[in-house]
């Protein structure tokens, strides 16, 4: 199996012309091995310290905090929070908005990841050959990646606008009654999905393009000799070789599904009637609009559980992607 389409950072630069003469020269003497090892170890912790402070303050302390918050509640406004057991979890499970957000998030995951990956793979297969036209096409598909999600939402606000908007102007005339793309609870989530696929497919395409480079020509040559059709070659040669890439892209796509809600904020605020609410947006609402830290914490923990679950399943993929264990 080929290595996954992981970050290839080996710069491949010439190293021969590097000069170290600028360093202060000293008497050459053999360093004492044991002392050096001990100081290296202490030095290593020193080197890691700035990062560890950051991780402690803004990753691990917040996780501890959110666990604590999720099992505490204020009995009355202004009083100190007291232990509440699983009350916050019961509260969010009893909250129809939360259940809706969780189910929406599931549909949103399926409805964005599968189309994005299929489109990205198709684009990569079609545009794998690097020539001028294909490079332009790749750039066209990649451009949305650089557009802030809020800015994309500002544009799609008009695209989805009833009657005068872009879709209704060009396509709506062929429909007897074009739906209210963002205002109809049965349709709005699909509209949000369209925006997400538009924004992300070009990003995932890049990984498939890199992955395709790793499929050995010999594998295709054998398939040709055996008279395999193009579909057979896709199923039995290309896709098996792309498996690590697909795994990696799926992990990234899953993270995006849980962490990206800016467009929901601009386009629908989770509505109409919570039909486009997603977990993270629900958390934001609880914290900022309802000031219910307990429910916000419980909701955050559900998101975290999903992410940790993804991590646990994909640990091998991630480790490989970042060059294996030390």
């Amino acid at each position, binding site marked *: 199996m080929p290595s996954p*389409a992981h*970050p*290839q*950072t080996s*710069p491949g630069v010439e*190293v021969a012309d*590097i000069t*170290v003469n600028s*360093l202060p*020269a000293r008497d050459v003497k053999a360093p004492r091995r044991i002392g050096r090892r001990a100081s290296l*170890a202490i*030095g*290593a912790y020193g*080197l890691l310290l*700035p*990062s*560890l402070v*950051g*991780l402690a*303050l*803004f990753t*691990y*302390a917040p996780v501890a905090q*959110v666990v604590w918050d999720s099992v505490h509640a204020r009995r009355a406004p202004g009083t100190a929070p007291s232990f509440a057991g699983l009350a916050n979890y019961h509260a969010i499970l009893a909250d129809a908005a939360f259940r809706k957000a969780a189910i929406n998030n599931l549909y949103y995951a399926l409805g964005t990841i599968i189309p994005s990956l299929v489109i990205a793979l198709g*684009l990569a*297969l*079609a545009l*794998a*050959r690097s020539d001028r036209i294909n490079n332009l*096409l790749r*750039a*066209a598909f*990649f451009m949305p990646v*650089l557009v*802030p999600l*809020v800015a*994309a939402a*500002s*544009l799609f606000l*008009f695209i989805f606008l009833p009657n*005068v908007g872009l879709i*209704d102007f060009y396509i709506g005339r062929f429909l007897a009654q074009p739906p209210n793309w963002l205002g109809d609870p049965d349709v709005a989530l699909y509209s949000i999905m369209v925006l997400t696929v*538009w924004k992300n497919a070009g990003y995932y395409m890049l990984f498939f393009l*890199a992955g*395709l480079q*790793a499929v050995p*020509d010999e594998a*295709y040559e054998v398939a040709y000799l055996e008279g395999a059709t193009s579909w057979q*070659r896709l199923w039995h040669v*290309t896709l098996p070789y792309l498996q690590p890439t697909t795994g990696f892209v799926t992990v*990234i796509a899953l*993270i995006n599904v849980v962490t990206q809600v800016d467009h929901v904020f601009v386009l629908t605020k989770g509505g109409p009637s919570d039909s486009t609410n997603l977990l*993270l947006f629900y958390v934001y609402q609880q914290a900022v609009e309802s000031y219910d830290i307990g429910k*916000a*914490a419980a909701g955050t923990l559900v998101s975290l559980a999903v*992410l940790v679950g993804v*991590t646990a399943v994909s640990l091998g993929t991630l480790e490989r*992607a*970042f060059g294996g264990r*030390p």
Partner: protein
Amino acid sequence: MTPSRRHSTLPLATRREIVPRIGYGLVLVAAVLWLVPILWMLVASVRPQSFGGPGMASLIPDAQPTSRNFIDAWEAADFPRYYLNSAIIVAGILAVQLVTITLAGYAFARVAFPGRQWLFYVFLLQLMLVPVVLIVPNLSMVARIGLYDTLLGVMAPYFASAFGTFLMRQAFASIPRELEDAALVDGASVLQRIRHIYVPLALPAFLAFAVVSVTAHWNEFLWPLMVINSPDKRPLTVGLAAFTRGQEGAQSWGVIAAGTLLVIAPLLLLFLLFQRRFINSFVTSGIK
């Protein structure tokens, strides 16, 4: 993806065998669809009749373009201030990150120390426990250390980057040890060795990280929205959302298109100038 493979003749997968011509035609159609939102933005931002008339959605440019929408947008929101705030945020985050990831990346790449395996997982987990999911507890942390409603508060959660650390670890690990040993004999300290040997040889990796980091934080919205309260400290994304809300009520779509273009333009221009650099950086990135 070995380097030699890249220069070989094109892979057989691409010889129009797997995706036949119909597929290529579909891709051309898709490319047009993909460009439509950007195209509309360009056309509508200079459209004279910009208030939601029936022709507002037309993708055909008007005979007499106007700069009126840009003037209106510029007056409706404090864009220069938003640009400045966004620039301060991305530059500040990147500057600190470059220091933290260099030091940590070197430690993981070159030093054998007890607990390395364990600390590796402490970092790896941060790839998933992304700060944006932790907005609620991070907000109370930022408030506790007195950074609420400051640009520094927006930056702080990103100062340590697991992704950057792993990227630098890989780049440093590919540099021959002999170079460092020579410097060691010369009596160079750890920081001198990093500064004079590792950093110059890892510039491509630094550049890739910079592109990804700047893009990610230039585009970020929900976290700055929560941390920033004063209108004059808003970054572009937060400013744009408030601006859009105001103009949406007035149905001034041309002004929204102009304002959106102002926000998108810097990164898009950089991309058009340095396409290959951008694309390579994002392939390298995997996780933002």
